[in-house]
Protein backbone atom coordinates (compact mmCIF):
# COMPACT_ATOMS: atom_id res chain seq x y z
CA UNK A 1 0.00 0.00 0.00
CA UNK A 2 1.26 3.51 0.75
CA UNK A 3 5.00 3.79 0.87
CA UNK A 4 6.44 5.07 4.13
CA UNK A 5 8.39 8.12 2.94
CA UNK A 6 6.25 11.25 2.99
CA UNK A 7 6.11 12.82 -0.46
CA UNK A 8 7.13 16.23 0.88
CA UNK A 9 10.60 14.81 1.63
CA UNK A 10 11.42 14.19 -1.98
CA UNK A 11 9.26 16.60 -3.95
CA UNK A 12 10.67 20.09 -3.27
CA UNK A 13 7.66 21.79 -4.89
CA UNK A 14 5.51 20.51 -2.04
CA UNK A 15 7.47 22.78 0.30
CA UNK A 16 5.05 25.11 2.03
CA UNK A 17 1.98 23.27 0.75
CA UNK A 18 -0.29 22.38 3.68
CA UNK A 19 -0.87 18.66 3.97
CA UNK A 20 -2.91 16.20 5.96
CA UNK A 21 -3.56 12.49 6.12
CA UNK A 22 -7.08 11.26 5.45
CA UNK A 23 -7.87 7.56 5.95
CA UNK A 24 -4.25 6.69 5.16
CA UNK A 25 -3.92 8.82 2.02
CA UNK A 26 -1.66 11.84 1.77
CA UNK A 27 -3.63 14.99 0.99
CA UNK A 28 -2.12 18.28 -0.15
CA UNK A 29 -3.80 21.67 -0.28
CA UNK A 30 -2.02 23.72 -2.95
CA UNK A 31 -3.33 27.18 -3.76
CA UNK A 32 -4.86 27.75 -7.17
CA UNK A 33 -1.68 29.53 -8.23
CA UNK A 34 0.59 26.63 -7.31
CA UNK A 35 -1.80 23.83 -8.23
CA UNK A 36 -0.43 23.08 -11.71
CA UNK A 37 3.15 23.44 -10.52
CA UNK A 38 2.58 20.95 -7.70
CA UNK A 39 0.82 18.51 -10.03
CA UNK A 40 3.66 18.77 -12.54
CA UNK A 41 6.19 18.02 -9.80
CA UNK A 42 4.17 15.03 -8.64
CA UNK A 43 3.98 13.80 -12.20
CA UNK A 44 7.77 13.92 -12.36
CA UNK A 45 7.85 12.05 -9.05
CA UNK A 46 6.05 9.12 -10.65
CA UNK A 47 2.37 10.00 -10.31
CA UNK A 48 1.76 9.60 -14.01
CA UNK A 49 -2.01 9.12 -13.89
CA UNK A 50 -4.94 11.11 -12.58
CA UNK A 51 -7.31 8.52 -11.21
CA UNK A 52 -10.07 10.93 -10.53
CA UNK A 53 -10.89 14.61 -10.60
CA UNK A 54 -14.08 15.95 -9.14
CA UNK A 55 -15.45 19.08 -7.54
CA UNK A 56 -17.12 19.30 -4.15
CA UNK A 57 -19.51 21.99 -2.96
CA UNK A 58 -19.12 22.75 0.74
CA UNK A 59 -21.88 25.40 0.81
CA UNK A 60 -23.44 24.03 3.98
CA UNK A 61 -20.17 22.88 5.51
CA UNK A 62 -17.88 25.90 5.22
CA UNK A 63 -16.45 25.24 8.68
CA UNK A 64 -15.06 21.83 7.76
CA UNK A 65 -11.78 20.61 9.23
CA UNK A 66 -8.85 21.90 7.19
CA UNK A 67 -5.25 22.76 8.00
CA UNK A 68 -5.09 26.21 9.62
CA UNK A 69 -3.51 28.07 6.69
CA UNK A 70 -6.03 26.84 4.10
CA UNK A 71 -8.87 29.28 3.36
CA UNK A 72 -12.32 27.76 3.77
CA UNK A 73 -13.90 28.37 0.38
CA UNK A 74 -17.16 27.02 -0.93
CA UNK A 75 -15.80 24.83 -3.71
CA UNK A 76 -12.98 22.38 -3.84
CA UNK A 77 -11.43 20.59 -6.77
CA UNK A 78 -10.24 17.19 -5.64
CA UNK A 79 -7.64 15.34 -7.69
CA UNK A 80 -6.61 11.79 -6.93
CA UNK A 81 -3.21 10.94 -8.38
CA UNK A 82 -1.84 7.46 -8.82
CA UNK A 83 1.73 6.27 -9.02
CA UNK A 84 1.91 2.88 -10.69
CA UNK A 85 5.55 2.36 -9.75
CA UNK A 86 4.91 2.75 -6.03
CA UNK A 87 1.27 1.57 -5.97
CA UNK A 88 0.49 4.74 -4.10
CA UNK A 89 -2.12 7.46 -4.19
CA UNK A 90 -1.90 11.16 -3.40
CA UNK A 91 -4.71 13.66 -3.28
CA UNK A 92 -4.79 17.35 -4.09
CA UNK A 93 -7.57 19.53 -2.76
CA UNK A 94 -7.67 22.96 -4.35
CA UNK A 95 -9.78 25.66 -2.76
CA UNK A 96 -11.96 27.51 -5.27
CA UNK A 97 -13.93 30.53 -4.02
CA UNK A 98 -17.60 30.96 -4.79
CA UNK A 99 -17.30 34.42 -6.38
CA UNK A 100 -14.63 33.28 -8.82
CA UNK A 101 -15.16 29.58 -9.54
CA UNK A 102 -12.20 29.21 -11.86
CA UNK A 103 -9.39 26.76 -11.58
CA UNK A 104 -6.44 26.25 -13.92
CA UNK A 105 -6.74 23.19 -16.11
CA UNK A 106 -4.58 20.13 -15.54
CA UNK A 107 -5.09 19.06 -19.14
CA UNK A 108 -1.61 20.06 -20.21
CA UNK A 109 -0.03 17.98 -17.47
CA UNK A 110 -2.50 15.10 -17.43
CA UNK A 111 -4.53 14.88 -20.65
CA UNK A 112 -6.66 12.24 -18.93
CA UNK A 113 -8.40 14.99 -16.98
CA UNK A 114 -10.24 16.16 -20.08
CA UNK A 115 -13.52 14.37 -19.48
CA UNK A 116 -13.29 14.77 -15.72
CA UNK A 117 -12.87 18.54 -15.91
CA UNK A 118 -15.70 18.79 -18.37
CA UNK A 119 -17.84 16.83 -15.95
CA UNK A 120 -16.84 19.06 -13.03
CA UNK A 121 -17.75 22.11 -15.10
CA UNK A 122 -21.01 20.58 -16.22
CA UNK A 123 -22.28 19.43 -12.86
CA UNK A 124 -20.58 21.80 -10.44
CA UNK A 125 -19.91 24.91 -12.51
CA UNK A 126 -16.17 25.15 -11.91
CA UNK A 127 -14.54 26.65 -15.00
CA UNK A 128 -11.17 25.24 -15.90
CA UNK A 129 -9.09 28.01 -17.43
CA UNK A 130 -7.26 26.82 -20.52
CA UNK A 131 -9.27 23.66 -21.06
CA UNK A 132 -9.40 22.95 -24.80
CA UNK A 133 -13.06 21.90 -24.84
CA UNK A 134 -14.95 23.57 -21.99
CA UNK A 135 -18.38 22.35 -23.05
CA UNK A 136 -20.96 20.44 -21.09
CA UNK A 137 -20.45 16.72 -21.24
CA UNK A 138 -23.39 14.98 -19.56
CA UNK A 139 -26.17 17.55 -19.72
CA UNK A 140 -27.58 19.18 -22.85
CA UNK A 141 -25.70 22.20 -24.16
CA UNK A 142 -28.50 24.59 -23.15
CA UNK A 143 -29.07 23.28 -19.62
CA UNK A 144 -29.33 26.00 -17.02
CA UNK A 145 -27.43 25.70 -13.79
CA UNK A 146 -25.10 23.13 -12.37
CA UNK A 147 -27.08 20.36 -10.67
CA UNK A 148 -24.52 19.06 -8.21
CA UNK A 149 -24.31 22.41 -6.44
CA UNK A 150 -25.94 22.17 -3.08
CA UNK A 151 -28.22 25.15 -3.71
CA UNK A 152 -29.64 23.44 -6.81
CA UNK A 153 -32.54 21.48 -5.41
CA UNK A 154 -33.17 18.17 -7.05
CA UNK A 155 -36.54 18.05 -8.73
CA UNK A 156 -36.58 21.85 -8.97
CA UNK A 157 -36.26 21.90 -12.72
CA UNK A 158 -39.21 20.46 -14.61
CA UNK A 159 -38.40 17.46 -16.69
CA UNK A 160 -37.03 18.58 -20.02
CA UNK A 161 -39.59 16.73 -22.10
CA UNK A 162 -42.59 18.19 -20.31
CA UNK A 163 -43.91 20.02 -23.37
CA UNK A 164 -43.67 16.99 -25.56
CA UNK A 165 -47.12 15.75 -26.65
CA UNK A 166 -48.51 13.01 -24.48
CA UNK A 167 -49.26 9.49 -25.64
CA UNK A 168 -52.83 10.47 -26.52
Amino acid at each position, binding site marked *: MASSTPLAWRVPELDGVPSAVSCGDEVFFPTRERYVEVATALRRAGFV*TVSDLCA*VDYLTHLDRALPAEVPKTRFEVVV*NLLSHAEARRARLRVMVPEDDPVCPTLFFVYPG*TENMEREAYDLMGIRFAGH*PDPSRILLPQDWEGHPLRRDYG*SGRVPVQFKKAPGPR
Partner: protein
Amino acid sequence: MSEDQPTTGQVPDQVREGSYDAAARARLVAVTDEGTQQLAPVGVTGATELAIEKGGVLRIPESDALDPDAADATFGTGETMILNVGPQHPSTHGVLRMMVELQGETILRSKPVIGYLHTGMEKTGEELSYVQGATNVTRMDYLAPLHNELVYALAVEKLLAVEIPPRATWIRMLMCELNRISSHAIWAATNGMDLASTSMMIFGLRERDLVLQFFEKVTGLRMNHNYIRPGGVAADLPEGWEDDVEAVVDTVGARLVDYDHLLTGQPIFRERTEGVGVVPAELLLALSATGPLLRAAGVPWDLRRQMPYLAYDEVDFDVIVGTAGDCFSRYAVRLAEVRESIRIVRQILEKMPSGDYRTQDKKVTPPPRARIDESMEALIHHFKLFTSGIEPPAGEVYVAVESPRGELGCYLVADGSNRPMRMHIRTPSFVNLQSVPALLRGGLIADMIAILSSVDPVLGDVDR
Protein backbone atom coordinates in the same frame (compact mmCIF):
# COMPACT_ATOMS: atom_id res chain seq x y z
CA MET B 1 -3.71 26.64 -44.31
CA SER B 2 -0.30 28.00 -45.35
CA GLU B 3 0.67 28.22 -49.00
CA ASP B 4 3.63 25.81 -48.89
CA GLN B 5 1.31 22.85 -48.43
CA PRO B 6 -0.03 20.98 -51.46
CA THR B 7 -3.10 22.55 -52.96
CA THR B 8 -6.26 21.16 -51.55
CA GLY B 9 -8.57 19.27 -53.82
CA GLN B 10 -5.97 16.98 -55.30
CA VAL B 11 -6.15 14.32 -52.68
CA PRO B 12 -9.88 13.72 -52.58
CA ASP B 13 -9.97 13.56 -56.39
CA GLN B 14 -7.46 10.78 -56.30
CA VAL B 15 -9.37 9.00 -53.64
CA ARG B 16 -12.53 9.25 -55.69
CA GLU B 17 -10.81 7.89 -58.76
CA GLY B 18 -9.56 4.91 -56.84
CA SER B 19 -5.86 5.60 -57.39
CA TYR B 20 -5.20 5.51 -53.67
CA ASP B 21 -1.60 4.37 -53.58
CA ALA B 22 1.32 4.94 -51.24
CA ALA B 23 2.27 8.26 -52.76
CA ALA B 24 -1.28 9.51 -52.45
CA ARG B 25 -1.36 8.38 -48.87
CA ALA B 26 1.88 10.22 -48.15
CA ARG B 27 0.39 13.39 -49.63
CA LEU B 28 -2.79 12.79 -47.70
CA VAL B 29 -0.82 12.55 -44.51
CA ALA B 30 1.03 15.72 -45.45
CA VAL B 31 -2.22 17.58 -46.01
CA THR B 32 -3.87 16.43 -42.84
CA ASP B 33 -0.77 16.41 -40.67
CA GLU B 34 -1.13 18.73 -37.74
CA GLY B 35 2.51 18.36 -36.79
CA THR B 36 2.12 15.24 -34.72
CA GLN B 37 0.51 12.58 -36.82
CA GLN B 38 2.64 9.89 -35.26
CA LEU B 39 2.38 9.28 -31.56
CA ALA B 40 5.64 9.56 -29.68
CA PRO B 41 6.18 8.33 -26.12
CA VAL B 42 4.93 10.75 -23.52
CA GLY B 43 8.38 11.17 -22.06
CA VAL B 44 9.72 12.43 -25.40
CA THR B 45 6.91 14.77 -26.42
CA GLY B 46 6.38 16.73 -23.23
CA ALA B 47 3.12 17.99 -21.93
CA THR B 48 2.37 20.77 -24.43
CA GLU B 49 2.95 18.64 -27.46
CA LEU B 50 1.01 15.84 -25.87
CA ALA B 51 -1.90 18.17 -25.48
CA ILE B 52 -1.82 19.01 -29.17
CA GLU B 53 -1.73 15.29 -29.81
CA LYS B 54 -5.10 15.10 -28.15
CA GLY B 55 -6.29 17.06 -31.14
CA GLY B 56 -7.64 13.62 -31.94
CA VAL B 57 -10.70 14.96 -30.20
CA LEU B 58 -13.17 16.91 -32.24
CA ARG B 59 -13.57 20.16 -30.39
CA ILE B 60 -16.71 21.74 -31.70
CA PRO B 61 -19.77 22.33 -29.56
CA GLU B 62 -22.52 19.85 -30.10
CA SER B 63 -25.00 22.52 -31.16
CA ASP B 64 -22.67 23.87 -33.85
CA ALA B 65 -22.17 20.45 -35.32
CA LEU B 66 -25.91 19.96 -35.63
CA ASP B 67 -26.61 23.35 -37.14
CA PRO B 68 -27.08 22.94 -40.91
CA ASP B 69 -26.12 26.60 -41.46
CA ALA B 70 -22.73 25.89 -39.95
CA ALA B 71 -22.13 23.11 -42.43
CA ASP B 72 -19.83 25.31 -44.48
CA ALA B 73 -17.53 25.68 -41.53
CA THR B 74 -17.22 21.97 -41.01
CA PHE B 75 -17.38 20.68 -44.55
CA GLY B 76 -15.46 23.70 -45.86
CA THR B 77 -12.85 22.41 -48.23
CA GLY B 78 -14.75 19.32 -49.21
CA GLU B 79 -11.84 17.21 -48.15
CA THR B 80 -13.35 15.79 -45.00
CA MET B 81 -16.76 14.76 -43.86
CA ILE B 82 -18.17 14.35 -40.41
CA LEU B 83 -20.02 11.11 -39.90
CA ASN B 84 -22.38 10.69 -37.05
CA VAL B 85 -22.72 7.22 -35.54
CA GLY B 86 -25.36 6.76 -32.92
CA PRO B 87 -26.78 7.46 -30.42
CA GLN B 88 -29.28 4.94 -31.73
CA HIS B 89 -26.87 2.43 -33.13
CA PRO B 90 -26.65 -1.17 -31.99
CA SER B 91 -22.88 -1.23 -32.10
CA THR B 92 -22.33 1.70 -29.80
CA HIS B 93 -23.28 -0.45 -26.80
CA GLY B 94 -26.11 1.74 -25.68
CA VAL B 95 -26.70 5.39 -26.33
CA LEU B 96 -23.26 6.56 -27.29
CA ARG B 97 -22.89 8.96 -30.15
CA MET B 98 -19.62 8.95 -32.02
CA MET B 99 -18.72 11.82 -34.31
CA VAL B 100 -15.92 10.97 -36.66
CA GLU B 101 -14.24 13.21 -39.15
CA LEU B 102 -13.25 11.22 -42.18
CA GLN B 103 -10.96 11.70 -45.08
CA GLY B 104 -11.86 8.97 -47.45
CA GLU B 105 -12.05 5.99 -45.14
CA THR B 106 -9.43 7.25 -42.74
CA ILE B 107 -10.55 8.62 -39.40
CA LEU B 108 -8.89 11.93 -38.72
CA ARG B 109 -10.57 12.99 -35.53
CA SER B 110 -13.38 11.67 -33.45
CA LYS B 111 -15.36 12.59 -30.43
CA PRO B 112 -17.64 10.53 -28.26
CA VAL B 113 -20.73 12.51 -27.31
CA ILE B 114 -22.27 11.18 -24.14
CA GLY B 115 -24.90 12.04 -21.59
CA TYR B 116 -27.94 10.33 -23.08
CA LEU B 117 -28.25 8.04 -20.08
CA HIS B 118 -27.37 10.61 -17.44
CA THR B 119 -29.73 10.27 -14.50
CA GLY B 120 -27.91 12.30 -11.87
CA MET B 121 -27.00 9.38 -9.65
CA GLU B 122 -24.34 11.36 -7.82
CA LYS B 123 -27.00 13.87 -6.81
CA THR B 124 -29.33 11.04 -5.84
CA GLY B 125 -26.51 9.58 -3.77
CA GLU B 126 -26.51 12.74 -1.68
CA GLU B 127 -30.21 12.36 -0.98
CA LEU B 128 -30.06 8.75 0.13
CA SER B 129 -28.72 7.56 3.45
CA TYR B 130 -25.75 5.24 3.66
CA VAL B 131 -28.13 2.33 4.23
CA GLN B 132 -30.02 3.15 1.03
CA GLY B 133 -26.99 4.14 -1.00
CA ALA B 134 -26.13 0.71 -2.32
CA THR B 135 -29.44 0.49 -4.18
CA ASN B 136 -28.44 3.60 -6.08
CA VAL B 137 -24.87 2.79 -7.04
CA THR B 138 -25.70 -0.73 -8.15
CA ARG B 139 -27.64 0.73 -11.07
CA MET B 140 -24.67 2.51 -12.59
CA ASP B 141 -22.70 -0.24 -14.27
CA TYR B 142 -25.46 -2.68 -15.00
CA LEU B 143 -23.06 -5.38 -16.14
CA ALA B 144 -21.00 -5.31 -12.96
CA PRO B 145 -23.44 -4.17 -10.26
CA LEU B 146 -21.68 -6.01 -7.47
CA HIS B 147 -18.48 -4.10 -8.03
CA ASN B 148 -20.37 -0.84 -7.72
CA GLU B 149 -21.89 -1.97 -4.44
CA LEU B 150 -18.50 -3.17 -3.29
CA VAL B 151 -16.70 0.12 -3.86
CA TYR B 152 -19.45 2.04 -2.11
CA ALA B 153 -19.50 -0.35 0.83
CA LEU B 154 -15.70 -0.26 1.12
CA ALA B 155 -15.71 3.55 1.13
CA VAL B 156 -18.36 3.73 3.85
CA GLU B 157 -16.56 1.09 5.89
CA LYS B 158 -13.27 2.93 5.58
CA LEU B 159 -14.93 6.07 6.92
CA LEU B 160 -16.53 4.09 9.73
CA ALA B 161 -13.28 2.17 10.39
CA VAL B 162 -15.38 -0.95 10.92
CA GLU B 163 -13.98 -4.46 10.67
CA ILE B 164 -15.68 -6.89 8.33
CA PRO B 165 -15.86 -10.58 9.26
CA PRO B 166 -13.71 -12.83 7.04
CA ARG B 167 -16.68 -14.71 5.64
CA ALA B 168 -18.25 -11.47 4.41
CA THR B 169 -15.00 -10.57 2.70
CA TRP B 170 -14.77 -13.93 0.96
CA ILE B 171 -18.42 -13.91 -0.06
CA ARG B 172 -17.84 -10.48 -1.60
CA MET B 173 -14.83 -11.81 -3.44
CA LEU B 174 -16.76 -14.81 -4.72
CA MET B 175 -19.61 -12.67 -5.99
CA CYS B 176 -17.31 -10.10 -7.58
CA GLU B 177 -15.28 -12.71 -9.43
CA LEU B 178 -18.44 -14.38 -10.71
CA ASN B 179 -19.61 -10.94 -11.77
CA ARG B 180 -16.35 -10.46 -13.64
CA ILE B 181 -16.99 -13.71 -15.48
CA SER B 182 -20.50 -12.66 -16.45
CA SER B 183 -19.36 -9.19 -17.48
CA HIS B 184 -16.56 -10.50 -19.66
CA ALA B 185 -18.93 -13.09 -21.12
CA ILE B 186 -21.39 -10.43 -22.21
CA TRP B 187 -18.49 -8.39 -23.53
CA ALA B 188 -17.28 -11.33 -25.62
CA ALA B 189 -20.86 -11.73 -26.80
CA THR B 190 -21.28 -8.13 -27.92
CA ASN B 191 -17.79 -7.96 -29.32
CA GLY B 192 -18.52 -11.01 -31.43
CA MET B 193 -21.82 -9.47 -32.48
CA ASP B 194 -20.12 -6.23 -33.47
CA LEU B 195 -17.73 -8.20 -35.65
CA ALA B 196 -20.62 -10.11 -37.23
CA SER B 197 -20.13 -13.31 -35.30
CA THR B 198 -23.74 -13.60 -34.27
CA SER B 199 -23.38 -17.03 -32.70
CA MET B 200 -21.03 -15.48 -30.19
CA MET B 201 -23.88 -13.36 -28.87
CA ILE B 202 -25.77 -16.49 -27.93
CA PHE B 203 -22.72 -18.14 -26.41
CA GLY B 204 -21.89 -15.14 -24.24
CA LEU B 205 -25.44 -14.64 -23.06
CA ARG B 206 -25.66 -18.34 -22.24
CA GLU B 207 -22.65 -18.18 -19.92
CA ARG B 208 -23.80 -14.94 -18.38
CA ASP B 209 -27.15 -16.45 -17.64
CA LEU B 210 -25.57 -19.28 -15.67
CA VAL B 211 -23.94 -16.75 -13.40
CA LEU B 212 -27.08 -14.62 -13.17
CA GLN B 213 -29.09 -17.64 -12.10
CA PHE B 214 -26.69 -18.15 -9.24
CA PHE B 215 -26.93 -14.46 -8.37
CA GLU B 216 -30.70 -14.75 -8.34
CA LYS B 217 -30.46 -17.65 -5.93
CA VAL B 218 -28.16 -15.71 -3.60
CA THR B 219 -29.48 -12.17 -3.82
CA GLY B 220 -32.99 -12.62 -5.12
CA LEU B 221 -32.32 -10.57 -8.22
CA ARG B 222 -30.47 -11.03 -11.47
CA MET B 223 -29.28 -7.43 -11.57
CA ASN B 224 -29.23 -4.44 -9.20
CA HIS B 225 -28.72 -6.78 -6.30
CA ASN B 226 -28.18 -4.45 -3.32
CA TYR B 227 -26.36 -7.44 -1.89
CA ILE B 228 -23.03 -6.00 -0.78
CA ARG B 229 -23.89 -3.44 1.86
CA PRO B 230 -21.84 -1.42 4.31
CA GLY B 231 -21.04 -3.87 7.08
CA GLY B 232 -21.03 -7.08 5.08
CA VAL B 233 -23.45 -8.73 2.70
CA ALA B 234 -27.24 -8.85 2.83
CA ALA B 235 -27.61 -12.59 3.34
CA ASP B 236 -25.52 -15.66 3.78
CA LEU B 237 -24.94 -17.95 0.83
CA PRO B 238 -27.80 -20.42 0.37
CA GLU B 239 -27.55 -24.08 1.25
CA GLY B 240 -25.60 -26.02 -1.34
CA TRP B 241 -23.97 -22.95 -2.87
CA GLU B 242 -20.71 -24.85 -3.36
CA ASP B 243 -22.34 -27.22 -5.85
CA ASP B 244 -23.94 -24.34 -7.72
CA VAL B 245 -20.71 -22.40 -7.97
CA GLU B 246 -18.80 -25.49 -8.99
CA ALA B 247 -21.33 -26.19 -11.70
CA VAL B 248 -21.08 -22.61 -12.94
CA VAL B 249 -17.30 -22.47 -13.14
CA ASP B 250 -17.00 -26.00 -14.53
CA THR B 251 -19.49 -25.23 -17.27
CA VAL B 252 -18.11 -21.82 -18.12
CA GLY B 253 -14.55 -23.16 -18.04
CA ALA B 254 -15.44 -25.96 -20.41
CA ARG B 255 -17.39 -23.69 -22.73
CA LEU B 256 -14.51 -21.26 -23.08
CA VAL B 257 -13.16 -23.76 -25.57
CA ASP B 258 -16.11 -22.82 -27.75
CA TYR B 259 -14.95 -19.22 -27.63
CA ASP B 260 -11.55 -20.34 -28.84
CA HIS B 261 -13.14 -22.21 -31.70
CA LEU B 262 -15.51 -19.45 -32.59
CA LEU B 263 -13.29 -16.41 -32.18
CA THR B 264 -9.70 -16.98 -31.10
CA GLY B 265 -8.77 -19.23 -33.98
CA GLN B 266 -11.11 -17.62 -36.44
CA PRO B 267 -9.18 -16.06 -39.33
CA ILE B 268 -11.79 -13.37 -40.07
CA PHE B 269 -11.97 -12.34 -36.43
CA ARG B 270 -8.19 -12.19 -36.18
CA GLU B 271 -7.86 -10.18 -39.36
CA ARG B 272 -10.34 -7.66 -38.08
CA THR B 273 -8.76 -7.29 -34.65
CA GLU B 274 -5.04 -7.88 -34.96
CA GLY B 275 -3.03 -4.69 -35.26
CA VAL B 276 -6.18 -2.59 -35.02
CA GLY B 277 -6.43 0.27 -32.55
CA VAL B 278 -2.94 0.37 -31.14
CA VAL B 279 -1.60 3.23 -29.05
CA PRO B 280 1.47 3.21 -26.80
CA ALA B 281 1.01 2.38 -23.15
CA GLU B 282 2.44 5.77 -22.12
CA LEU B 283 -0.41 7.53 -23.86
CA LEU B 284 -2.96 5.27 -22.21
CA LEU B 285 -1.42 6.04 -18.82
CA ALA B 286 -1.57 9.76 -19.53
CA LEU B 287 -5.21 9.36 -20.57
CA SER B 288 -5.92 7.64 -17.23
CA ALA B 289 -6.96 4.41 -18.92
CA THR B 290 -7.26 1.35 -16.69
CA GLY B 291 -8.40 -2.23 -16.81
CA PRO B 292 -8.03 -4.62 -19.74
CA LEU B 293 -7.50 -1.65 -22.07
CA LEU B 294 -4.29 -0.74 -20.23
CA ARG B 295 -3.19 -4.29 -19.48
CA ALA B 296 -3.50 -5.28 -23.14
CA ALA B 297 -0.93 -2.59 -23.91
CA GLY B 298 1.56 -4.27 -21.60
CA VAL B 299 1.14 -2.45 -18.29
CA PRO B 300 0.75 -5.03 -15.51
CA TRP B 301 -1.63 -2.89 -13.47
CA ASP B 302 -4.39 -4.66 -11.61
CA LEU B 303 -5.63 -3.20 -8.34
CA ARG B 304 -6.35 -6.70 -7.05
CA ARG B 305 -2.63 -7.34 -7.17
CA GLN B 306 -0.97 -3.95 -6.79
CA MET B 307 -3.22 -2.44 -4.14
CA PRO B 308 -5.04 -5.45 -2.73
CA TYR B 309 -8.46 -5.02 -1.18
CA LEU B 310 -10.74 -7.69 0.28
CA ALA B 311 -8.57 -10.83 0.51
CA TYR B 312 -7.01 -10.79 -2.95
CA ASP B 313 -3.56 -11.06 -1.39
CA GLU B 314 -4.54 -14.51 -0.08
CA VAL B 315 -5.52 -16.04 -3.41
CA ASP B 316 -3.25 -17.05 -6.22
CA PHE B 317 -3.92 -15.58 -9.64
CA ASP B 318 -2.04 -14.06 -12.54
CA VAL B 319 -2.38 -10.52 -13.81
CA ILE B 320 -3.00 -10.95 -17.51
CA VAL B 321 -0.90 -8.66 -19.65
CA GLY B 322 -1.04 -8.32 -23.41
CA THR B 323 1.82 -7.33 -25.66
CA ALA B 324 0.42 -5.87 -28.85
CA GLY B 325 -2.14 -3.48 -27.36
CA ASP B 326 -4.51 -4.10 -30.27
CA CYS B 327 -8.13 -5.20 -30.26
CA PHE B 328 -7.11 -8.83 -30.29
CA SER B 329 -4.92 -8.32 -27.19
CA ARG B 330 -7.86 -6.80 -25.39
CA TYR B 331 -9.99 -9.76 -26.37
CA ALA B 332 -7.29 -12.22 -25.28
CA VAL B 333 -6.73 -10.42 -21.97
CA ARG B 334 -10.43 -10.58 -21.12
CA LEU B 335 -10.71 -14.22 -22.09
CA ALA B 336 -7.70 -15.09 -19.95
CA GLU B 337 -9.14 -13.05 -17.10
CA VAL B 338 -12.24 -15.21 -17.15
CA ARG B 339 -9.96 -18.21 -16.66
CA GLU B 340 -8.16 -16.43 -13.81
CA SER B 341 -11.48 -15.58 -12.20
CA ILE B 342 -12.46 -19.22 -12.40
CA ARG B 343 -9.16 -20.04 -10.72
CA ILE B 344 -9.88 -17.54 -7.96
CA VAL B 345 -13.43 -18.87 -7.50
CA ARG B 346 -12.10 -22.42 -7.10
CA GLN B 347 -9.73 -21.22 -4.38
CA ILE B 348 -12.56 -19.37 -2.67
CA LEU B 349 -14.55 -22.61 -2.70
CA GLU B 350 -11.75 -24.26 -0.75
CA LYS B 351 -10.95 -21.43 1.60
CA MET B 352 -14.37 -19.97 2.40
CA PRO B 353 -14.28 -19.36 6.15
CA SER B 354 -17.28 -19.87 8.38
CA GLY B 355 -18.73 -17.28 10.70
CA ASP B 356 -20.72 -14.11 10.38
CA TYR B 357 -21.60 -12.74 6.98
CA ARG B 358 -21.93 -9.20 8.32
CA THR B 359 -20.38 -7.24 11.11
CA GLN B 360 -21.95 -7.46 14.56
CA ASP B 361 -21.51 -3.72 15.05
CA LYS B 362 -25.04 -2.71 16.03
CA LYS B 363 -24.64 0.78 14.60
CA VAL B 364 -24.08 -0.73 11.14
CA THR B 365 -25.97 -4.01 10.98
CA PRO B 366 -29.63 -4.40 11.87
CA PRO B 367 -30.43 -7.09 14.45
CA PRO B 368 -32.01 -10.38 13.32
CA ARG B 369 -35.79 -10.23 13.13
CA ALA B 370 -36.24 -12.65 16.03
CA ARG B 371 -34.17 -10.48 18.37
CA ILE B 372 -36.47 -7.50 17.90
CA ASP B 373 -39.33 -9.33 19.63
CA GLU B 374 -37.34 -10.18 22.72
CA SER B 375 -34.88 -7.32 23.19
CA MET B 376 -35.73 -3.66 23.69
CA GLU B 377 -32.16 -2.77 22.78
CA ALA B 378 -32.41 -4.64 19.49
CA LEU B 379 -35.67 -2.84 18.72
CA ILE B 380 -34.02 0.54 19.35
CA HIS B 381 -31.03 -0.34 17.19
CA HIS B 382 -33.33 -1.49 14.42
CA PHE B 383 -35.41 1.66 14.65
CA LYS B 384 -32.36 3.93 14.72
CA LEU B 385 -30.77 2.18 11.78
CA PHE B 386 -33.78 2.42 9.54
CA THR B 387 -34.92 5.90 10.54
CA SER B 388 -31.57 7.70 10.62
CA GLY B 389 -29.05 5.07 9.63
CA ILE B 390 -25.29 4.76 9.68
CA GLU B 391 -23.48 7.92 10.71
CA PRO B 392 -19.81 7.86 9.75
CA PRO B 393 -17.57 10.55 11.23
CA ALA B 394 -16.81 13.60 9.09
CA GLY B 395 -14.05 12.98 6.59
CA GLU B 396 -13.30 12.17 3.00
CA VAL B 397 -12.05 8.98 1.45
CA TYR B 398 -11.18 7.62 -1.96
CA VAL B 399 -11.46 3.88 -2.45
CA ALA B 400 -10.91 2.02 -5.70
CA VAL B 401 -11.54 -1.53 -6.83
CA GLU B 402 -10.77 -3.36 -10.05
CA SER B 403 -14.06 -3.69 -11.88
CA PRO B 404 -14.19 -5.73 -15.12
CA ARG B 405 -13.67 -2.45 -16.98
CA GLY B 406 -10.91 -0.95 -14.87
CA GLU B 407 -10.51 1.21 -11.83
CA LEU B 408 -13.84 1.89 -10.19
CA GLY B 409 -13.37 4.53 -7.53
CA CYS B 410 -15.62 6.13 -4.97
CA TYR B 411 -14.84 9.50 -3.45
CA LEU B 412 -17.04 10.00 -0.45
CA VAL B 413 -17.26 13.11 1.69
CA ALA B 414 -19.02 12.55 5.00
CA ASP B 415 -20.17 15.33 7.30
CA GLY B 416 -21.14 13.22 10.31
CA SER B 417 -24.77 12.90 9.28
CA ASN B 418 -26.54 9.84 7.89
CA ARG B 419 -26.16 10.93 4.26
CA PRO B 420 -23.02 11.52 2.22
CA MET B 421 -22.20 15.19 1.70
CA ARG B 422 -20.80 14.26 -1.71
CA MET B 423 -20.61 10.94 -3.46
CA HIS B 424 -18.53 10.80 -6.59
CA ILE B 425 -18.01 7.60 -8.51
CA ARG B 426 -15.02 7.44 -10.80
CA THR B 427 -16.28 5.06 -13.41
CA PRO B 428 -13.87 3.19 -15.67
CA SER B 429 -16.05 3.45 -18.78
CA PHE B 430 -16.30 7.24 -18.54
CA VAL B 431 -12.54 7.63 -18.27
CA ASN B 432 -11.60 4.90 -20.74
CA LEU B 433 -13.82 6.54 -23.34
CA GLN B 434 -11.23 9.33 -23.53
CA SER B 435 -8.84 6.89 -25.14
CA VAL B 436 -11.22 6.12 -27.99
CA PRO B 437 -10.25 9.16 -30.12
CA ALA B 438 -6.60 8.24 -29.69
CA LEU B 439 -7.30 4.62 -30.62
CA LEU B 440 -9.39 5.54 -33.65
CA ARG B 441 -7.06 8.18 -35.00
CA GLY B 442 -5.55 7.29 -38.34
CA GLY B 443 -7.48 4.05 -38.51
CA LEU B 444 -10.12 3.02 -40.97
CA ILE B 445 -13.81 3.65 -40.50
CA ALA B 446 -14.40 -0.08 -40.86
CA ASP B 447 -12.36 -0.65 -37.71
CA MET B 448 -14.26 1.87 -35.65
CA ILE B 449 -16.82 -0.52 -34.26
CA ALA B 450 -14.16 -3.12 -33.49
CA ILE B 451 -12.13 -0.57 -31.55
CA LEU B 452 -15.10 0.91 -29.75
CA SER B 453 -16.27 -2.52 -28.75
CA SER B 454 -12.83 -3.54 -27.52
CA VAL B 455 -12.81 -0.64 -25.05
CA ASP B 456 -15.99 -2.07 -23.51
CA PRO B 457 -17.88 1.07 -22.54
CA VAL B 458 -21.05 0.49 -20.56
CA LEU B 459 -23.19 3.53 -21.04
CA GLY B 460 -24.86 3.31 -17.67
CA ASP B 461 -21.37 3.50 -16.25
CA VAL B 462 -20.36 6.36 -18.53
CA ASP B 463 -23.32 8.63 -17.89
CA ARG B 464 -24.42 7.65 -14.41
